[in-house]
């Protein structure tokens, strides 16, 4: 185990230098990097916000099932199916019917089925029929129908979230899908997450609806911004989908912040027609079922642009414009998990992390020299090489370093010497019975090999499981611990062994102080 061929030595140090090279990249000028690779700091070290958002598709399902009412009734009528007791429930439509078999055939026909489209990639229809008894049925979304609704809502939500966050202008945001209902948002360097949370918490469904004179059928009672209770027609004149642009502005006369908007052609037509027909009436501008303002229509607006004035500050106007520009979320989002660290706490964490690393490292180094003298020095060189390689591998993987990750590095320092301790202790034992020093070292290394491997693989298993199940900062710990084990094995079995062999082989005669 002590004889190295030249090519072996060359390879051992080449790999070491190659990996070490990457660790240096972290110290290069970050503005003009030679190779753009570095260890990223986790949110707990650089400060920032981690948000886990969850979509709630229930309102969407309700809306979608309602949209099936008219086509379903039409289908029933067109085919002379007599139905009664038609009820619109939260997630299904129920009714009584004589000829259920016929409905079945109609509902599950693959040709031109507008009511119940066939979803090819799932081999399933959008809707399902539940037969309650001889004459009662329920129409509801199939499992895959629900999945399709959910997935498209999630995709759309991610898109809208991205637009809103990009519009605010935070640096390097991460927006990812997590599972089938959640969106993970990481915003490094963000000091105040409240604004983003507010922006993401609004669905921002904008409607223009006429204010009705009396409590006729089809009105909602909504409260306006000045506390006035208004009957607003359920009929939507125009919605936020027709908006092309929105910008915050100031009203020329009152100097009040306003939001000006521009409509697309269809929107401009609808808006023009409604304002022409209803001069003198009031038009309510409704955002998420709340009236922002309800101005009177003084004259027809056919230009395709308009102004929303309300009781808002300039910041609120800016945010409203942003929300309108980015579009409405298909469903409401809730923040189910939030972790925010201020930048100064992050800086403190880095400081205390580095301090404890240096102190822990120094203590271990002195202990090893005290214990093993010259071979302690070798173990320490291996330890330093180990740390450099660990940082190098983290850089190659562009891994994220977190505070627990720093703890993982310190722990690696403490545990890394174990490999060398195992080997040295074994050699000591061999030296007792073995006359030749070289032979003793040789046997020591080969006998300790299995033990070292076994002992490290157990810790590696723990690290892998932690990586798979951990989240955020804890994952960072698993990464450094896991990589630390691999670099430890390399430095103990290649670097330290070669250094040891140089000393032992040069000292053919005499005693070795171990």
């Amino acid at each position, binding site marked *: 185990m002590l004889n190295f061929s030249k090519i072996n030595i060359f390879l051992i140090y080449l790999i070491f230098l190659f990996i070490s090279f990457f660790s240096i990249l972290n110290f290069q000028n970050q503005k003009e990097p030679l190779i753009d690779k570095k260890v990223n700091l986790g949110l*707990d070290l650089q400060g920032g916000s981690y948000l*886990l958002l*969850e979509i709630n598709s229930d309102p969407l399902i309700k809306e979608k099932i309602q949209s099936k009412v008219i086509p379903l009734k039409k289908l029933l009528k067109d085919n002379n199916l007599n139905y009664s007791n038609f009820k619109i429930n939260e997630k299904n439509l129920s009714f009584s019917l004589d000829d259920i078999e016929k409905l079945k055939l109609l509902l599950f026909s693959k040709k031109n089925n507008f009511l119940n489209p066939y979803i090819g990639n799932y081999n399933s229809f959008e809707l399902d029929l539940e037969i309650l008894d001889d004459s009662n049925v329920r129409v509801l979304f199939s499992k895959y129908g629900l999945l399709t609704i959910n997935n498209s809502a999630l995709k759309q939500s991610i898109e809208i979230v991205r637009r809103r966050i990009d519009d605010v202008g935070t640096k390097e945001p991460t927006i990812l899908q997590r599972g089938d209902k959640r969106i993970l948002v990481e915003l490094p360097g963000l000091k105040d*997450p*409240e604004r983003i949370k507010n922006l993401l918490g609004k669905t921002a469904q904008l409607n223009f609806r006429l204010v009705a004179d009396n409590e006729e059928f089809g009105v909602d009672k909504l409260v306006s911004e000045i506390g006035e209770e208004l009957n607003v027609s359920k009929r939507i004149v125009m919605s936020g989908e027709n908006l092309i642009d929105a910008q915050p502005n100031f009203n020329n006369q009152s100097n009040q912040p306003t939001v000006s908007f521009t409509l697309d052609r269809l929107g401009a037509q609808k808006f023009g027609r409604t304002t022409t027909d209803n001069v003198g009436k009031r038009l309510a501008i409704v955002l998420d079922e709340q009236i922002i303002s309800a101005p009177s229509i003084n004259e027809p607006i056919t230009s395709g642009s308009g102004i929303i004035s309300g009781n808002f500050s300039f910041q609120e106007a800016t945010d409203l414009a942003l929300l309108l520009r980015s579009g409405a979320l298909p469903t409401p989002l*809730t*923040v*189910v998990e*939030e*972790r*925010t*660290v*201020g930048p*100064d*706490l992050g800086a403190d*964490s880095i400081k*205390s992390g580095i*301090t*404890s690393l240096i*102190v*822990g*490292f120094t203590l*271990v180094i002195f*202990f*090893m020299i005290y214990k093993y003298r010259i071979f302690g020095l070798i173990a320490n060189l291996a330890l330093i090489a180990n740390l450099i390689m660990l940082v190098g591998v983290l850089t190659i993987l562009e891994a994220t370093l977190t505070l*627990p990750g*720093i*703890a993982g590095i*310190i*722990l690696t*320092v*403490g*545990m890394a*010497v*174990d490999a060398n*301790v*195992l080997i040295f*202790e074994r050699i000591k*034992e061999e030296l007792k019975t073995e006359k030749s020093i070289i032979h003793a070292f040789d046997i020591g290394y080969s006998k300790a090999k*299995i*033990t070292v491997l*076994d*002992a490290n*693989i*157990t*810790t*590696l*298993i*723990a*690290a892998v*499981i*932690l990586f*798979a*199940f*951990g*989240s*955020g900062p*804890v994952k960072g*710990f698993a990464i450094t*611990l896991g990589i630390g084990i691999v670099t430890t094995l390399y430095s103990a079995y290649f670097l330290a062994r070669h250094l040891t062999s140089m000393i032992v082989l040069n000292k053919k005669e005499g005693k070795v102080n171990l």
Partner: protein
Amino acid sequence: MITNIDFSSKFKSANILSLLIFIMSVLFILFKGLNYGIDFKGGTLIELRADNKNINISEIRSSLNSMNLGDINVKEFGKEGDYLIKVEQKTESNNQLIPEIKKTLINNLNAEIDFRRVENVGPKVSSELLQSGIIAISLSLIAMLFYIWIRFEWQFSVGSIVALFHDVIITIGIFSILSLEINLSIIAAVLTIVGYSMNDTVVIYDRIRENLNKYTRLNINEIANLSINETLSRTIITSLTTLLALLSIYILGGEILRGFSFAMILGVLIGTYSSIFVAAPVLKFFKVSYKTLEKKEEKIVP
């Protein structure tokens, strides 16, 4: 230097002691329960720094009580003027909660307040986190069981799992006794303890296996004793260097890592003890001898 300490004579009393502490830990975990942090219980955590050092905990508590937030826990956290507030929250998160708390505190305390860290975990996410934590620990135990089964005979595998259970339960038991908080980083610590303790056990088992073949006349107790002595200096040195590193995290690593490093220190101490006084003696119960090893060899070689 190889010691010659008679460990085997102490196996019995050590096993009784272990059993007692183990049972006590289980009882504490069952009846006193664990002090779950917001990661596993849900709720809001705020680490704040006030520029006015004269405020005290009761002022913070009383101003928060006026908000009707339910169970509130306030404690000093590290430096003077740093506090940690925990608010139990039963419903899904309220977007306005944190700004409202900030406003209330600034108004009532007459101080500039900086929220250094805010964590908010909803009830659904917290129960998922707890579940995945339990799965992770169980899975790691199973993985270790299998690894040792592959590398050694089944008796060793069972022995190492007994030792691991011992370590994990007692560590968590001490957290229950001292009412220390269990959060995500404690799960990470427990998993690392599993790895570390296994590491220690494997080193001794490796030697036991080697000595079983070497000294066929010695019984398992004598073999265990010899093997423990032969590896003792390694066991102590590695525990010491690991403890040095952990102590430096515990003392200098800041408040956030304190619970984690404390759990690890406990784990290293218990793990070192268990590999000597639990893992090795267990083999006796299975009547492990050099014959156990031979049988296995025959099975493998076709």
